[in-house]
């Protein structure tokens, strides 16, 4: 055990992930050499994960306000008005590095952390999603990571009792050394029942709640901001272990306590646990915090102040309570068999003072810990525009039907049933959909309205052109929410990138943010919360830039939402947005010709809005029986998915002399909808008047999906191909 007054050597500074100039800044701020505990506190507060030092400059450019926004970024989660005095509270957060080291616990605690972010604000979690990215299927570690991550997400969410209503799963060699686990949670609260972290009042008790503190994750936040190297196996001890049973009790106890009126401020202990939560509460409220670590409930012997301050033990909360209500609060926690301890007091000194075994082990200016954190304007270079791939230069497949089957059975495009059947998608009794559709839909308990949500990003587009890719991620999310009939409200972003100290990686980040901001402004889809995960690199190899976007939308009447399954025989199939011809970066080009090339499809935000608003209007008018957006795999895959889900085929008219272009182009701002045959002509006319290209392209029915006079693929063979890959891969 290193003593608290150990001399701070350059090596010690370096092992805390602090650069020499950052350490110099610490010396200047406090005017003396820090103690070991103080160094630990600075390292936790000033690492990338907590301080956003590389990203802050750019995050500030994102639009964060709008008619529906109650609380934007800066709180535990974003808060959005959904009418009738109800608010939706949501956020997405990464747990990438821990999940690669210990997939089950890493993913489980990722889910636990995001759920805690939501209920810390006073909201009961009512839905979850997750966006998962894994290495190439043939990489030796991939199967193990997939299996552990999926089991961990399920193990935590299922036990806690929140339905998982959607998400994404991708495979790519660029995630071989760094998987991505981005967990999203959405909660429901009353507008007047939101709780914040800002402490108010001097001399009030600071209360510790929840599970006991152990040594788990000591240095975890520092790990999450470091590149991996071959010593990764040695980092295992810092992974936290989740206990969903404790979290479920913590949820119930917190909500009960909040309803009692005893809570003044509350903050969950996430990354760098006690340090970040206490500093946040004090600094936001312009107060000092005085902590006595001898009062902290611990489950291991001889823990040092350093370890307690940096522990990332899960399922813990910090609160400032109304002193007169302390006994009442204690009784609620006793009922739920959770630890409750007064560990400190708010002060008017603006100092963060830590006492342990009769000594002051840290005494720091509380506001400087956050406000004076380094902020970098990292050098960046915009990536080179990729060479266009012309549709005319992309060969047709030998056999259109075989090509479609191959795509449907490919790792990125096959059914995710193996994954989502391990998640409880129904608990709480308000799920209107199961995963697999455009957006997950849930009813607001006791009301007729509902919320739709979707998580989206196309990393290969972002790699080719991060600006277009960033726009596309937002546009696709907006489109998916629209496709079920909901009005998009706001998003949370989870920006996963490589090492920002490399100008080309920083360039990806900057350009993606610019694209995201552009799309959010055009679509009135503000960012209300988010998370940045940088340094996703192993041995110098960065992940694909992956700015995951999760958005929510409102359905005034949840019973009016539409699914994507062909519902009946003989219905007209309309293509909204017209035929496309963009095959650069398409699934077709990659899966059939083995080429990851070209520019991604350009995003036309005005068209996106016009087409989406038209589709939403049709759905609201009750004219649509099924709707599905066009994205990966283009028109062919959209139609195939609608056919498989409905268990019925369709006849599609194709005049094109190069049907593979029309079928597999991934041009944006497009949907397929089905309507009653007799309604089709009038809808096309109205669309034309609204400036939306809509064409009737076929009729539902039969047991095959038939393209013009060419290929006819049976729905059963598509299902077999689509459902087969995942289970057989995981069994392998």
């Amino acid at each position: 055990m290193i003593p608290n007054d150990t001399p701070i050597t350059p090596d010690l500074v370096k092992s805390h992930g602090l650069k020499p100039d950052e350490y110099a800044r610490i010396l200047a701020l406090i005017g003396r050499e820090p103690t070991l505990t103080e160094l630990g506190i600075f390292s936790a507060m000033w690492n990338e994960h907590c301080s956003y030092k590389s990203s802050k400059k750019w995050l500030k450019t994102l639009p964060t306000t709008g008619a529906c926004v109650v609380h934007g970024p800066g709180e535990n989660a974003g808060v959005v008005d959904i009418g009738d005095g109800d608010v939706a509270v949501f956020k997405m957060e990464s747990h990438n590095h821990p999940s690669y080291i210990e997939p089950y616990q890493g993913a489980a605690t990722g889910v636990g952390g995001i759920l805690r972010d939501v209920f810390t604000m006073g909201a009961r979690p009512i839905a979850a999603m997750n966006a998962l990215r894994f290495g190439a299927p043939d990489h030796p570690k991939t199967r193990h990571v997939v299996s552990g991550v999926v089991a961990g997400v399920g193990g935590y969410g299922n036990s806690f009792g929140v339905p998982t209503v959607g998400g994404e799963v991708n495979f790519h060699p660029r995630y071989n050394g760094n998987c991505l686990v981005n967990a999203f949670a959405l909660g429901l609260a009353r507008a007047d029942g939101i709780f914040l972290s800002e402490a108010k009042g001097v001399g009030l008790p600071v209360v510790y709640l929840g599970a006991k503190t152990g040594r788990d994750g000591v240095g975890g936040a520092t790990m999450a901001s470091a590149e991996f190297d071959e010593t990764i196996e040695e980092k295992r001890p810092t992974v936290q272990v989740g206990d969903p049973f404790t979290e479920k009790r913590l949820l119930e106890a917190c909500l009960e306590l909040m309803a009692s009126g005893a809570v003044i401020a509350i903050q969950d202990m996430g990354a760098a646990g006690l340090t970040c939560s206490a500093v946040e509460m004090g600094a936001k409220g312009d107060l000092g915090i005085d902590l006595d670590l001898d009062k902290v409930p611990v489950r291991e012997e001889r823990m040092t102040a350093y370890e307690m301050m940096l522990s990332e033990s899960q399922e813990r909360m910090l609160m400032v309570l109304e002193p007169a209500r302390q006994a009442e609060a204690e009784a609620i926690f006793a009922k739920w068999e959770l630890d409750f301890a007064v560990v400190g007091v708010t002060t008017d000194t603006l100092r963060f003072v830590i006492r342990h075994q009769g000594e002051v082990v840290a005494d720091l200016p509380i506001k400087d810990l956050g406000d004076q954190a380094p902020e970098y304007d990292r050098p960046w270079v915009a990536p080179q525009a990729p060479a266009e791939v012309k549709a005319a230069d992309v060969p047709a497949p030998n056999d259109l039907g075989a090509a479609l089957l191959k795509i449907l059975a490919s790792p990125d495009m096959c059914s995710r049933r193996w994954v989502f059947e391990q998640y409880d998608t129904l608990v709480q009794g308000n799920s209107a959909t199961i995963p697999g559709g455009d957006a997950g839909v849930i009813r607001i308990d006791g009301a007729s309205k509902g919320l739709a949500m979707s998580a989206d990003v196309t990393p290969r587009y972002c790699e080719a052109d991060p600006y277009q890719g960033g726009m596309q991620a937002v546009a696709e999310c907006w489109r998916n929410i629209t496709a079920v009939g909901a009005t998009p409200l706001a998003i949370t972003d989870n920006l996963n990138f490589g090492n920002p100290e490399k100008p080309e990686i920083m360039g990806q980040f900057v350009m993606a943010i610019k694209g995201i901001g552009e799309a959010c402004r055009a679509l009135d889809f503000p960012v209300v919360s988010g998370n940045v995960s940088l340094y996703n690199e192993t041995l110098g190899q960065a992940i694909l830039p992956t700015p995951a976007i999760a958005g929510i939308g409102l359905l005034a009447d949840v019973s009016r939402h539409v699914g994507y399954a062909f519902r009946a025989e003989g219905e007209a199939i309309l293509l909204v947005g017209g035929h496309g011809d963009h095959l650069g970066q398409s699934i077709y080009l990659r899966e059939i010709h083995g080429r990851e090339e070209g520019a991604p499809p350009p995003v036309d935000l005005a068209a996106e809005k016009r087409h989406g608003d038209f589709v939403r209007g049709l759905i609201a008018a009750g004219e649509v029986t099924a709707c599905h957006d066009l994205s990966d795999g283009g028109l062919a895959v959209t139609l195939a998915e609608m056919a498989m889900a409905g268990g019925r085929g369709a006849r599609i008219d194709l005049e094109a002399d190069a049907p593979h272009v029309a079928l597999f182009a991934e041009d944006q701002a497009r949907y397929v909808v089905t309507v009653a045959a007799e309604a089709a002509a009038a809808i096309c006319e109205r669309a034309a008047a609204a400036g939306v290209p809509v064409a009737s392209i076929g009729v539902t029915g039969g047991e095959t999906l038939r393209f013009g006079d060419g290929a006819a693929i049976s729905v059963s063979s598509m299902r077999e191909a689509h459902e087969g890959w995942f289970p057989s891969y995981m069994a392998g």
Partner: protein
Amino acid sequence: MLRSAVIVFPGSNRDRDMVAALTKITGTAPAVVWHQDTDLPDVDLVVLPGGFSYGDYLRSGAIAARSPVMTAVREKAAQGVKVLGVCNGFQILTEAGLLPGALMRNAGLKFVCREVKLKVANAGTAFTGAYMQGQILRCPVAHHDGNYFADAETLARIEGEGQVAFRYAEGTNPNGSLNDIAGIVNAAGNVLGMMPHPENLIEALHGGTDGRGIFESLAA
């Protein structure tokens, strides 16, 4: 009017679903009883809902089965009051000895949430009267430990006595249960345990109403 009570254990998570289903179908909200309580109100039906009581630690349902309220549940059951255990509730009832057998880890080892087909194996119980004998129902399951096991003698007895209320049908057994058993009643017929979740298939939002029959049978 069916008077009911739903028991909440630490870690229960389909208690609210069950309260909603009972309220919607019977028109009356059930009493909600905390597991530390030693008394149950005067009701016609006691429900042990789904979830992960005590985190499924030790064995699913094992710790909840020893909680204070279970003495009262046992007494009610002995008096002939109807007792329904769904999912974790079924696990608790077997652990408490109110139903024979045990629920083990799914044969596939994974948590499974999907819709299955159920065959009404005995429409003559108080819980199944609204269904036809042999009727095939849709119903979702969501569990990790639903693999029903009983020794050969017990199995022969419950089969012989018509205690099997529901079986997984049409090859949809999701967990490896012996004889495709999805739900059983006790010898007296007033205690039903089942792994599937009828409370999650009771209205248009859920895409079907096949689960209502159980509650309607009880309310009849």
